[in-house]
């Protein structure tokens, strides 16, 4: 899961001096959409500019109350809930703070620094992710400028986060006056942001690897969540995976799957050698138009789950009226199920948690997991080379013996 607090900045060159005193500036960031996968960039970036950690304010998790209290009447169109709910986040940052914030920073994220970059055509954000802020802003400006009325500066940089070399200019164009910064400062802060994000992602991937190594050692199943980053928001994804975790099944999220060479070569190496794919992160075998970052990752996650023995079940989360997910429903299911991995889709997620139906489905999933996991593990293990890098030599022998049992 994400953490929303500024950690101590990791090593980098000191910021260009003299730096202006920005310790009193409070910056509010709506915690929505792809801020969920870039939050640590924002923390690193702002801290490097001299904004205090406690002055970096992320809005709360999405909730219906938040929408009712702060976003009512601000919506301009009907669309998927991850976008519609943003009004509540803006409203909370404007009206719901004990200590007033000075700036709302709501990035228009055009492209993402995905780990799949270089292996796919593009890593663009969904059109609604990139344009969401313009849409939501309209609801706060159509009658009067609510930001200005409340003494808040609204800043919405357009960012090609997949191309770190253009980000400083994009950031500078938007923030030079808002934060009174010069280009060198911005450049330095952008670097710090990326560094922070990389470090965080690494920690998360390492943590997933540990979970998966435990599953491998113990020969126990785990469950992969296949969704968009913001499905981690309890108000968007409705914590469906937690309900399953409560039954003792470890959960990993596709966004933080380990991508170490040893593991990927173990899983995809033979297909690369057979020239079925160009690299372990290539998805051209299952998806032609690899333009959308989160979609690419979902398809790759499905491939990973289809092959990794101890992921015996995939939970597919998808929001109501999600146009990006729509063409992927059948392909992801077919990919996952090819080698017998269980696949359960929770689609049409909206503002209200359908608690009753989720409970019943969780019971079904638990039943299937208990009944079929061993067989699935064995079947998938038998398809891969023997030397699983997650296991020590002794364990490899034990697991191999177990998988050979009838």
């Amino acid at each position, binding site marked *: 899961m994400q953490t929303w607090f500024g950690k101590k900045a990791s090593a980098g060159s000191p910021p260009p001096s003299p730096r202006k005193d920005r310790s009193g500036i409070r910056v509010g960031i709506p915690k929505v959409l792809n801020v969920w996968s870039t939050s640590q960039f924002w923390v690193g970036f702002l801290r490097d500019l001299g904004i205090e950690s406690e002055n970096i304010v992320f809005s709360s998790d999405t909730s219906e109350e938040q929408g009712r209290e702060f976003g009512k009447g601000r919506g301009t169109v009907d*669309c998927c809930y991850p976008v519609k709910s943003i009004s509540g986040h803006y409203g909370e940052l404007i009206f719901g703070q004990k200590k007033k914030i000075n700036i709302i920073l709501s990035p228009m994220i055009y492209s993402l620094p995905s780990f799949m970059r270089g292996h796919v055509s593009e890593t663009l954000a969904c059109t609604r992710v990139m*344009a969401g802020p313009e849409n939501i802003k309209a609801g706060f400006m159509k009658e009067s400028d609510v930001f200005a009325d409340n003494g808040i500066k609204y800043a919405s940089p357009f960012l090609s986060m997949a191309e770190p070399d253009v980000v400083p200019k994009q950031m500078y164009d938007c923030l030079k006056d808002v934060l009174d910064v010069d280009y060198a400062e911005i450049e330095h802060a952008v670097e710090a942001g990326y560094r922070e994000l990389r470090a965080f992602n690494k920690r998360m991937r390492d943590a997933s690897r540990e979970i998966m190594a435990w599953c491998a050692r113990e020969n126990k199943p785990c469950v992969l969540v296949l969704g968009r980053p913001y499905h981690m928001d309890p108000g968007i994804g409705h914590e469906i995976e937690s309900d399953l975790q409560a039954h003792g099944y470890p959960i990993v999220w596709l966004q933080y799957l380990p991508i170490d060479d040893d593991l990927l070569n173990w899983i995809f190496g033979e297909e690369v050698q057979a020239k079925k794919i160009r690299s372990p992160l290539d998805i051209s075998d299952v998806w032609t138009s690899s333009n959308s970052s989160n979609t690419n990752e979902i398809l790759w996650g499905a491939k990973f789950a289809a092959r990794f023995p101890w992921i015996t079940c995939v939970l597919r989360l998808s929001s109501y009226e999600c146009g990006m997910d729509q063409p992927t429903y059948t392909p992801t299911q077919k990919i996952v199920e090819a080698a017998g991995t269980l696949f359960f889709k929770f689609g049409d997620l909206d503002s209200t948690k359908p608690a009753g139906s989720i409970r019943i489905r969780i019971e079904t999933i638990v039943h299937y997991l208990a009944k079929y996991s061993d067989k699935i593990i064995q079947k998938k293990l038998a398809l891969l080379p023997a030397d699983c890098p997650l296991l020590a030599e002794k364990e490899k022998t034990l697991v191999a013996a177990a998988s050979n049992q009838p």
Partner: protein
Amino acid sequence: MATAVQHYTSYKARPFTREQRDTTTILFGGLTWKHERLVQGVFNNLNYKAKPLPNITRADLDAGKELIDVGACCPTIFTTGSLVNFLKTEVAENGKQKTIDDYVFLTAGACGPCRFGQYHESYEMALDGMGLKDFRLFLLAQDQLDQAPEKGGGLEINMPLSLGIVWAILCGDMLTDMEYQTRPYEVNPGDTDRVMKESADYLFEVFQKRPIHGKKWGLLAWHFLSSYFADALRVVKKKFDAIEVDRLQVKPKIKITGEFWLQTHEGDGNYNIKHWLEQEGSEVMPPPVAVWLGYLLHTPIWRLQKKAVVDRKVKFKMAMVRGMERLYVGTYNRFRKALGNVPYALPDQEELKKLASPFFHYELRGGEGHMLVGKALHAHLHKQANMTCELSPYSCMPNTMSQGAMANVQGRYPELLYAPIEIKGDAEVHALSRCQMILTEAKKRAQSEFVEAMARTGMTIEKAREIEAKRPELKKATYRIPHLGYASTAANYVMHLAGAKAAAV
């Protein structure tokens, strides 16, 4: 190691070989019948057999829904359904194997972030669902004029083909502009449709007989410099000359914008809304495909401007793009001139960007991007139209976003008459009645423009008729009415007859 499991792989088209060219028909679609007819001429010109899919019908929506995952936007459903229904009929008549052997389908693709870049995923799923996985489907990337030959070499997406298609589109736009400016005012009902059919057939032949001079740059230069197409359009003008119009009929001018496919389409896919608007007594300003091509041509400049270092190489590239753009717009204007300058000029991309800027960032991609906001404001501020009707597919991702931003525009420009119409494909009554409400106001505005123009100039209907009787060229469809400060044609016509100067815009 066990090998029993076959991991999932997506559709891969079988080769389409050179030898199969003579016996294989390329199917395509997605534009108006006029554009498609001319594109067909381009294919024939290069010795391909080709035919457009039948025009979209309501039944295509059902066929599409049946075979692709739920929740698709209606352009995806309609276009998939159209291919499905065509193939179904062929299979029923000629059998599966013959259908698979006799046809390939060529579809436009874009590295777009919305479903437009993924249409073919839906087509593939539908083919799978129909048991036609061996049917061949190819992508025409709209941003690459010269692509590597498709598998098998049967289809070469090269400069002769791509330039031909672009020029066919420009000429298709010319015809469409003529059509929509003429039909609402024609004195003899049916004249316009007849002339349109004749003109499209004539231009089809012009494209079919297009000489191929050079391969790449030489061919490009020929397209820009030759008078071949402009001469053909002058022949078309003569055909339109014969249509008599009465421009004293007061009709509001309605600008159509919206999602690319939906705004371009003429048929059940958008409830035939352009036709409906005409029947309701309006003049429709159709959206030229050329604006979209102009946008594609212009956006590299914005991308280049973003480069961290603008060195000589970048400057050279920018100059190249600008040069191309000038030639492109120049060609469009030459075509307009051949038709008496009746077709509308292309809007300036920099102006669209500037107008949209406070509301919608110009680099946001998907759908028509910032252009929807820019076009609505452009039409309003330049008094080009009394109302903008934006066709928005239900569940379209980019359109919902810019439509939301329009709330801010309307707050700032309360006078802007804007009708966003959601198109689901099967909720016609609801959509049209919503349009009707705003159209009523547009009609009032056109009427008051007319009354104002008459009052300003002291013109009366009788006087106007007298002038017309003396100057019969005024009643020709090809007589250009200058824009004199009003949106509606009748008001500008009155001003023109009176020799008045432009009303203050």
